[in-house]
């Protein structure tokens, strides 16, 4: 099992608050890996460290064998390591199609190409992906006018448009209507199997993450608490205590 992301002994503090303490974990290539933990346990901080949002204090982060802990956000994104945000972020004053068209991969975009128009294939792909997340009818609406759940789906479609090698999803189902969650789980799984995108998912909804992930890491109090299959994690006393507040 090859690791796509290798995190080794990563620590990060904000002033006096230690958000991550010597965390090591692997995200397996081609699989769906979960990251859980109580609020404030350092999940989003770890995501931010991986995507280069802030420098880390100690440790190493490798993406496909390459050290990325010194790179910045856009450079890491162009390598094919992409994240979505907990507070959904889309381009609000542009319509959905334009949101999609500007989300094409920027890896190889040269100076000449940025002054070109989008290709017919790109438009077709954008429409196909909007259909995939069920937003095709709303493609000409301004993204900012969509509901929160719809914006979340649009952000997911934009991420797919970028053809990442791995996608870090920060609470993909938060704020989504429970009746739509099953559809979303299905789409996440299809993104993994059909598009071959490795997923690393932060999720609070236990039903979702147990359904989705093959391997789960649990953080608590800024440290790695447990690792294992969903069955193993579910039965782990330390995890249960962390969530129920036995500490």
């Amino acid at each position, binding site marked *: 099992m090859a690791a796509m992301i290798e995190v080794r002994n990563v620590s990060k503090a904000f002033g006096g608050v230690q958000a991550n303490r010597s965390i090591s974990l692997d995200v397996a290539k081609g699989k769906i890996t979960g990251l859980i933990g109580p609020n404030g346990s350092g999940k989003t901080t770890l995501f931010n460290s991986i*995507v280069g949002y802030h420098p880390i204090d100690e440790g190493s982060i490798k993406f496909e064998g390459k050290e990325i802990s010194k790179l910045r*956000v*856009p450079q890491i*994104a*162009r390598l094919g390591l*992409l*994240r979505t*945000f907990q507070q959904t*972020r*889309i*381009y*609000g*004053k*542009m*319509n959905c199609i*334009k949101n999609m*068209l*500007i*989300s094409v*991969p*920027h*890896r190889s*975009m040269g100076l000449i*190409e*940025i*002054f*070109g*128009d*989008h290709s017919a294939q790109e438009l*077709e792909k954008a*429409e*196909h992906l*909007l*259909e995939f997340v069920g937003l*095709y*009818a*709303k*493609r*000409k*609406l*301004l993204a*900012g006018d969509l509901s929160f759940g719809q914006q979340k789906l649009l952000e997911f479609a*934009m991420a797919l448009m*970028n053809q990442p090698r791995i996608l870090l999803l920060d609470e993909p189902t938060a704020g989504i209507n429970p009746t739509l969650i099953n559809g979303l789980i299905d789409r996440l799984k299809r993104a993994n199997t059909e598009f071959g995108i490795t997923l690393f998912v932060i999720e609070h909804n236990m039903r979702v993450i147990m359904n989705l992930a093959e391997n789960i890491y649990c953080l608590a109090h800024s440290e790695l608490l447990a690792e294992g299959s969903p069955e193993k994690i579910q039965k782990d006393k330390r995890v249960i205590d962390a969530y129920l507040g036995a500490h």
Partner: protein
Amino acid sequence: MSISRRTLGLYGGIAIASLVAPFVFDNYISQLTVLWVMVLFAITWDAMGGQMGYNSLGNIFFFGAGMYISAVVQIGLHYDVAEYTAAYGAIKVDFTQAQYHVGLVLGTIVAALGSVALAVALSWVVFGLRGPYFAIGTLGIALAAGELVGAWEYVGAGSGISLPVFPGEPEVGERFFYFAFFIAAVLSFFFFRWLYGTRFGLAINAIRDDEEKAEAMGIRTMRYKTITWSLSAFFLGICGSLFGNYNIFIEPLEVAFATVVFGIPMVVMALLGGKGTLWGPVIGAVLYHVIKEATWKYFLGWQWVALGLLIVVTVVFFQQGIMGWAQDKWPELFGIEVEEDSAEGDREAA
């Protein structure tokens, strides 16, 4: 990009009106000339503030820089610039037609390129700033430039530079500059119209809507920001060069780096018409200019109060501008609507 009959009619109408206007409204030719300057100001400001979300209060810097660069080139072709400015206008230039036009064209080209070079150099400083800090930072550049040039003897310091007078009849000269500004404004309009239809346009819109997201999606934001500012500077440099020659006399605070007369109205015009739209800045510029000229004529003494009021009302109550308001009211006209057909069906039909 296909152009509809209506659009073609609109462009044709504006073109004809613009070509005829200086001959029919002979008495108003100077106001009409400045109108195109204002249109160019609003269009170039909107590229930054409207389309990319970087509210520059210092774009006037490139207008002034272009003006001075061009003046130095034009004078420098035939005289020693330091001696010329030290004489405070005692040296009277008498250029032939050929000398004048060669100087003007060469000066304008160098002004445009020089402004771009300044924009690229400054981008390393200003694009570290965001939001209101960017606005204040750029304002600082424009104000500092005015003061610095005002203390620089080589370019005449506060006394400015007298430029060569148009060789020929005064009426011919007036029309010459009217059409020069008209062409510059039209070129910048069509240039930015094209630009907003490319990937580049989408990228700067993305930076406006959420720059952090754009970075997280791998967009090379710094490159787009630098290029946009440079393009703005390019057209402003041309405009500054032409304006210096149109005005015959240039000096740092009231003409070149005129923040109150030109720098702030750039923002107001774009806001009034609707920032981030193609036509908004044009409409805003025309409206602002008409209002400004009317207040000068009918409320003399109160003109700055009236204009200040207009600015306050626009900024406080009417930020979306005319085009933004129209888009809110009639979204279908702007293509913002739900289409219930499926992608598959759509493609089969097409």
